[in-house]
């Protein structure tokens, strides 16, 4: 009886373990099935490199290059803002902060991660957008920059907590050795700790970027959503995610537009897959 119980439980956990892989595979298959149907009527070249996105016109134009560039522009902007602040914050928490402050900071960062993105989007819309508009004398504040700033807030918790873990797992002896050789505290951090934790920090950055590129609600609310080839970060852009979210309701199941949105989903999946693999590889290289 005991053996049987043991056996059943073991198999049950195995099933749960396999389930997650199964789900990913099924989602990917569904995505492929629906998305690839588009390419019966549209050339992949026109889809990926077309400059015009007019999904409901006759004939419809499905060029997602402006959307891809829009996503990249917002993400790059968010990375430029969040990576230096995030990594510096992680260094402070892991190396400099006194124990009490450390706890407060960590709790604060976790709280930041818990804010729903629609709330951040709303706050951005009423505070940040008018501010960006007046500061840069723009015709409108709904720009890629506004999106980047808001998304930087979302990437920060991921970057800080993983980078801090990476710094924490550097053997104590490294730092002690550096200090014993006469290095100052800052020299030890800059020359020894950061390089030693380098791959972990890279993983933190990649995962933060992965979070940004998949974000939907906040960017839809504050980037203006115009599908134009972006010329500067101070112009409105339309991202891949916002396009799917805004248009999925309208697309009739089985129409060309519907397949196109799934194809956009494939592109997003491929992008975030690469980001995650890069993060994973750099995490494992460390060990």
């Amino acid at each position, binding site marked *: 009886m005991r053996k049987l119980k043991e056996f059943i439980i073991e198999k049950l956990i195995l099933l749960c373990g396999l389930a997650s892989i199964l789900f990913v595979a099924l989602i990917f298959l569904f995505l492929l099935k629906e998305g690839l149907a588009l390419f019966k009527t549209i050339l992949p070249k026109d889809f990926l490199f077309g400059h015009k996105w007019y999904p409901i016109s006759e004939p419809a134009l499905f060029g997602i290059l402006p959307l891809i560039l829009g996503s990249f522009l917002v993400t790059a902007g968010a990375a430029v803002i969040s990576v230096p602040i995030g990594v510096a914050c992680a260094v402070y928490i892991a190396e400099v902060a006194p124990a009490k402050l450390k706890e407060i900071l960590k709790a604060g960062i976790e709280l930041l991660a818990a804010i729903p993105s629609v709330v951040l989007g709303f706050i951005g819309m009423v505070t940040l957008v008018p501010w960006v508009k007046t500061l840069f004398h723009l015709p409108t504040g709904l720009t890629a920059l506004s999106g980047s700033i808001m998304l930087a807030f979302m990437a920060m918790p991921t970057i800080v907590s993983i980078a801090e873990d990476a710094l924490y797992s550097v053997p104590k002896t490294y730092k002690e050795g550096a200090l014993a050789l006469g290095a100052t505290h800052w020299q030890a951090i800059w020359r020894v700790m950061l390089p030693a934790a380098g791959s972990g920090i890279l993983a933190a950055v990649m995962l933060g970027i992965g979070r940004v590129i998949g974000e939907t609600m906040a960017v839809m609310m504050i980037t203006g959503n115009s599908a134009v080839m972006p010329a500067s970060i101070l112009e409105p852009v339309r991202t891949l995610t916002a396009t799917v979210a805004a248009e999925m*309701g309208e*697309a009739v199941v089985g129409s060309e537009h519907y397949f196109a949105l799934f194809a956009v989903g494939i592109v997003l999946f491929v992008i975030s897959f690469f980001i995650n693999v890069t993060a994973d590889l750099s995490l494992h290289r460390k060990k």
Partner: protein
Amino acid sequence: MFKKIVITLAVSTVAISAAFSSKNANSIQIKGSDTMVNLGQAWAEKYMEANPAEFISVTGGGSGTGFSSLISGTCDIAMSSRSIKPKEIDLAKGKGINPKEITVALDGLAVVVNPKNPVEKLTLDQLAQIFTGKITNWKELGGPDLKIVLLSREVNSGTHVYFKEHVLRKGNAGFQEEFAPQALMLSSSQAIADEVAGNTGAIGYYGMGYISPKQKAVMVAKTGSLEFVSPTMDNVINGKYPISRPLFLYTNGEPQGLVKKFIDFILSQVGQDIVAKTDFVPVQK
């Protein structure tokens, strides 16, 4: 122990499936045009006051969303601010759905600018040139030297489609005019109202029910030689205002049972009074 779990599971499964399978015969799902959500909700509230045993739920999402729900069978009535497309009829027929159109109100589409903008009136031709990106500065229209910020609704909006077909393309199906790609796509009429209220260079469009003192509705004329008129109820009824449109409900086949009762209510005096109260134009006198 095991027995207990199994019994609990079995009981809860039965209970849950019972709750979901008994489709409530006393409720109607209505979905579609954002322009009509307030109107739909006002109808539903008044109707449910008189018929407390029946339940009507009204949600928005855009005219296209309404059609795709009607076609996939997830709503009983679709609200729409545009006619159904031939493509959508084909899709519906393929799923055994037979869309039936009922006109329930009229709506004037207002073109709005910031109250600080001195531009008072525009012709349809000028509007088309503005929204296709051929005119990009207010000074070309007698206003200040200020870049025009175009505000449009997302493509799932019936208002977007109507404006494109009747203003940009002037009702000519052969025309290929499109919204300029730099137009900002906002997800609701309210978002357009807010942006126009706060941006002196902005121009947008929406159903005239959304006009408030924070925006200025420009007067529109079909051509320069005709009279410029503002989007008021009287001008829509007498046909002077050039950008007005019918609002529809679509049902699957002839309305029956509860759906018919609700639509009869909408077309009654009480229902049409609600139309006027929510700033649309009644179709029945």
